[in-house]
């Protein structure tokens, strides 16, 4: 795994060119809703943020969580409830969702980091299942029907978000904020400690780093950002359903990260785009979507472990420009 991840590190571009590339992409995002259906891009942005948050754990800390749906869906339900029933403004609803996810992340992460490797994945899966059962049984979630008719409300009580473009720019701002937090974390001293834990945990420990603490902070941060994505998504679709807390969703975010390239900054976003485009095209085929998702998963694991961005980086290293 390490060898694959290392190859996914930066291409070695000068900082000026990296900034230019990011700047171009940000500008491109501003004009996107005039060409593509805005709700679809908003969904992509939410899932891209979700996958980027997940990548902080899998790609940069080497922890495979199989329970991230709990943070996405949990925050979505709370945000939906807060905005719809308690009448809070959207930004407060999102904040509540983020706080819930961070709290859940603290509990689930705190338990899961007591074991490592494969057990970590199984523990997160099991504890996320508890959140799923809670979502099924609690009265306000609406069971199989989900939480429907969530209003988008007015941002800060002033700006109505019902219009497709205002909502888009709101979501875009949230995505950029979340993405920036992930980017800064990866490139901070803290992020380097995380990477050292991924590469060699005993050595990081012997160098005096409190490994468990670092893992827990990374987990809570990842959970909180997943919550940010989930709460925003609930506002985008104006509903929240069990799909978002189901373990299929936990698997989907792994797939996005793997396909795009784990341990790369852009990979998860690219992966989210690919998976959602694929699902969009296949939506008429019923259960075959699941089968094809599975096939992509298997092929990805067997032959494409670096993902699209990882492969592109490897190519760019071979042929520098």
């Amino acid at each position, binding site marked *: *795994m*390490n060898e694959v991840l290392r190859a996914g590190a930066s291409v070695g571009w000068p900082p000026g060119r990296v900034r230019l590339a990011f700047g171009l992409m940000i500008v491109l995002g501003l004009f996107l809703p005039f060409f593509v259906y805005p709700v679809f891009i908003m969904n992509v942005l939410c899932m891209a943020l979700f996958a980027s948050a997940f990548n902080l754990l899998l790609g940069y800390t080497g922890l*495979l969580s*199989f329970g991230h749906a709990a943070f996405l869906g949990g925050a979505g339900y709370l945000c939906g409830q807060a905005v719809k029933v308690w009448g809070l403004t959207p930004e407060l609803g999102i904040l509540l969702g983020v706080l819930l996810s961070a709290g859940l992340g603290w509990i689930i992460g705190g*338990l*899961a980091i*007591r*074991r*490592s*490797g*494969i*057990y970590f*994945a*199984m*523990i997160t*899966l*099991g*504890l996320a*299942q*508890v959140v799923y*059962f*809670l979502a099924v*049984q609690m009265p306000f979630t609406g069971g199989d029907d989900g939480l429907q008719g969530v209003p988008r409300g007015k941002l800060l009580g002033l700006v109505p978000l019902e219009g497709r473009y205002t909502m888009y720019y709101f979501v875009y701002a949230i995505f950029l904020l979340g993405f920036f937090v992930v980017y800064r974390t990866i490139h901070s001293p803290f992020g380097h400690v995380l990477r050292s834990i991924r590469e060699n945990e005993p050595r990081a420990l012997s160098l005096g780093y409190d490994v468990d603490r670092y893992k827990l902070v990374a987990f809570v941060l990842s959970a909180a950002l997943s919550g940010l994505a989930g709460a925003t998504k609930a506002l985008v679709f104006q509903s929240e359903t069990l799909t978002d807390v189901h*373990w*299929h969703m936990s*698997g989907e975010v*792994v797939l996005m990260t*793997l396909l795009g390239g784990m341990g790369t900054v852009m990979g998860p976003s690219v992966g989210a785009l690919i998976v959602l485009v694929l699902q969009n095209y296949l939506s008429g085929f*019923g*259960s*075959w*979507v*699941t*089968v094809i*998702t*599975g*096939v*992509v*998963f*298997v092929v*990805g*694991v*067997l032959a494409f*472990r670096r993902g699209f961005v990882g492969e592109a980086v490897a190519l760019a290293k071979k042929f520098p420009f």
Partner: protein
Amino acid sequence: MQALFGQLLLGLINGSFYALLSLGLSIIFGLLNIVNFAHGALYMSGAMVAWLLLQHVGLGYWPALLVAPAIVALVGVVIERTMLRRLYQLDNLYGLLLTFGLTLIIEGIFHEQYGNSGNPYPVPDLLKGGVRLPFMYLPQYRAWVVVVAMIVCFGCWLVIERTKLGSYLRAGTENPKLVQAFGINVPLMFTITYGFGVALAAFAGVMAAPIYQVSPGMGSSLIMVVFAVVVIGGMGSILGSILTGVGLGVIEGLTRYFYAPASSVVIFVIMALVLLVRPAGLFGRQR
């Protein structure tokens, strides 16, 4: 009183399935170092194949008990030979991801073909009816499931701990390279082990068919509970995983009697408590 013993029996049956599945997972993990996420899907395949054999070929319960696991094991052998084999050199997270993908494929195909509804599977004639005990009614088939599951579990334990074949397996778990150096065909051993573990899951599936409804979704909820069982018991010890499986099944049954809504989460809550008190699991070694 009737209801309590009824739930206790159901818990014992669920526990037998937990034990059978976590045993297979442990054996596969021990040698191949792969956590087989597809275990639940293969358990479901066992039940579905038995049901299909009955529907289309007219093959009844008794032959299906052998034929269905054999068919599923064959699929398992193909999976091991063509896919898992390529991952042994890598981090074992990839094994989990690959088998997760396989789970989606297997469940998706059955789902597409046979829908989501449960299909009843008749109890074999020989085991119809039951015994009226002073405190409860005991259906014969359920007693049979518990007894057979226990025999199979302890049989596996005996083979692994007490026979030459088992000693190869244990040695391979410790150090596959050294075992290969002694002239034992380790790759073949890997294939057989995976096939056997998978057959065990499918066998459990056929046994489960007359008790639960046969449906494409029956495996995925089970596998998560089995994972929790494995975390609680630790995968190091075979006897440990059998005891943990049965014990947790019984606890789940009791919970269903005393406070039903908690029964779906009780095992995960126990997992959390065990992690707080004994992070390595009840029978596990810290690694």
